[in-house]
């Protein structure tokens, strides 16, 4: 009881959680938070493994939309674990707020990170459509511990009343923006970004071309759903799981050569490159002449150095631009050789529109976006957009291939957030 009493006293400048004039308030200043299902407070309704899995998933769902990472900690002294979860009935766990039995109040969260679930409720796993989804309640209560108050906005996970879920629930746009107002957007550099083009046949037999946007970082990746302004639910995923036969981390570049005669996709890492089979969704083992992959970049692209920083295919010119350090190499895919006037300084080929506002060297990724019909240079948290035809039509004075001043990647592509390694392959 002493433990909870001192939590009720509002901290300096803080309202006790849930006070009538409270609002959203950031609760933690560090980036990695630890949590634990308290050993003497397991539920009697689900296996301990299932309870822990559900909580791990609940934390992961917040981690997918915030810069926070959550790690289950089973060894540190209880007092240093940031968020402790436990089940109890009636008078429980030394908590001054007594549970009322099955129905009505099903859980509550305390300001300093304790979350209690009323074990008189019928909590069920995500796969069940009976009872009360433990996952949904856990995501709600974690939202409180992170600083979010109740809202009656339809669709929000922070509504005070439990809404039986029709489909698998996710954090919607407004909940994401609410938590990002407290903890900021997700930043970080990418190893490569690209649009994956694929042809599909509609039920009426027409061939349509669709594209998906991918962001790669270290050993994981996100699919970005441009029409929903967010990453795919459940991402990031390990590269190992989603892409068969290419290196499982730290990809340098991706290039899709797409002309009337060719439709090939290459991944580059170090001094080698891999060809990827879109139909079979795996890397080729050999090319049409039987030469095995991976192959040396110096063999497949004579004159191109390695390792590369990045590369992209310019479809109209049918050139691949390879980037290394402060230089860019233009490679003619039809003659299979470098243009004679290359390499050149990146700043010469892609001049800054605003002086000194330029990535200069070591570009993380040169990404042609079909959603925006533009090339973007990514470096660190920033992107520079390359002048395209539409820009030129509007302002003819713009230099060809000029770079607009840098902006923040997280202001254009939302919710590309890391998760803790321990939850990466959930």
């Amino acid at each position, binding site marked *: 009881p002493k433990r909870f009493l001192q939590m009720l006293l509002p901290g300096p400048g803080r309202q006790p959680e849930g*006070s009538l004039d409270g609002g959203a308030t950031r609760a933690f200043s560090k980036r990695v938070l630890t949590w634990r299902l*308290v050993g003497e407070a397991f539920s009697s309704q689900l296996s301990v493994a299932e309870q822990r899995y559900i909580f791990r998933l609940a934390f992961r769902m917040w981690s997918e939309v915030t810069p926070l990472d959550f790690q289950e900690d089973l060894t540190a002294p209880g007092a240093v674990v940031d968020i402790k979860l436990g089940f109890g009935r009636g008078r429980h*766990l030394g908590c001054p707020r007594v549970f009322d039995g099955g129905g009505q109040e099903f859980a509550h969260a305390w300001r300093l990170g304790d979350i209690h679930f009323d*074990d008189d409720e019928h909590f069920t796993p995500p796969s069940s459509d009976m009872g009360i989804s433990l996952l949904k*309640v856990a995501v709600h209560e974690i939202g409180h511990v992170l600083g979010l108050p*109740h809202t*009656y906005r339809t669709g929000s996970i922070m509504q005070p009343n439990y809404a039986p879920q029709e489909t698998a629930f996710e954090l919607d746009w407004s909940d994401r923006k609410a938590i990002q107002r407290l903890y900021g957007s997700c930043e970080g550099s990418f190893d490569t970004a690209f649009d994956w083009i694929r042809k599909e046949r509609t039920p009426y037999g027409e061939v349509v071309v669709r594209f998906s946007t991918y962001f790669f970082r270290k050993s994981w990746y996100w699919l970005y759903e441009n029409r929903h*302004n967010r990453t795919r*639910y459940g991402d990031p995923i390990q590269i190992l799981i989603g892409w068969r036969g290419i290196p499982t981390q730290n990809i340098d570049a991706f290039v899709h050569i797409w002309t009337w005669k060719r439709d090939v996709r290459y991944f580059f890492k170090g001094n080698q490159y891999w060809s990827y089979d879109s139909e079979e969704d795996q890397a080729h083992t050999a090319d049409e002449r039987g030469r095995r992959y991976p192959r040396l970049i110096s063999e497949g692209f004579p004159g191109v150095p390695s390792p590369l920083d990045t590369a992209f295919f310019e479809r109209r010119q049918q050139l691949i631009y390879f980037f290394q350090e402060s230089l860019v190499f233009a490679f003619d895919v039809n003659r299979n050789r470098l243009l004679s006037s290359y390499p050149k300084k990146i700043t010469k080929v892609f001049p800054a529109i605003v002086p000194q506002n330029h990535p200069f060297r070591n570009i993380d990724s040169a990404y042609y976006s079909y959603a925006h019909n533009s090339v973007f240079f990514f470096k660190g948290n920033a992107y520079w957009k390359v002048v395209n035809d539409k820009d030129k039509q509007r302002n003819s004075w713009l230099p060809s291939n000029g770079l607009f001043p840098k902006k923040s990647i997280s202001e254009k592509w939302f919710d590309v957030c890391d998760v803790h390694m321990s939850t990466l392959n959930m």
Partner: protein
Amino acid sequence: ETLFHSRDHSDLEPSSPLRQAKPIADIPAAQRFLSRYGWSGAQAAWGPSLGGPPEATPGAALAEAVRRFQQANRLPASGELDAATLAAMNRPRCGVPDTRLPPPAAQTPPPPGLLHRAR
């Protein structure tokens, strides 16, 4: 002794599987609800639950609290404890008190075409 349990375990309710919450069906229970979840009452919304009757909320103040709760739950703001209001009070809910709702303008409208699809 583990972190939470009192030495004599008096804080552990004997687990009786049939424990059901008492329905909120009369004014005292509704007053307790409104006070517990921050809709009324001088008692700190988020304080220990006291077993005894809530501070008697005078009629006008009770009606006002009921009205606020009804508005938030998109019920006719009559200030009366009608059946729909009592039903809303009895729905499964989180125990954290409700806060004043942000003005509607505060919500950033989601971009068009947002779909909720499975994970």
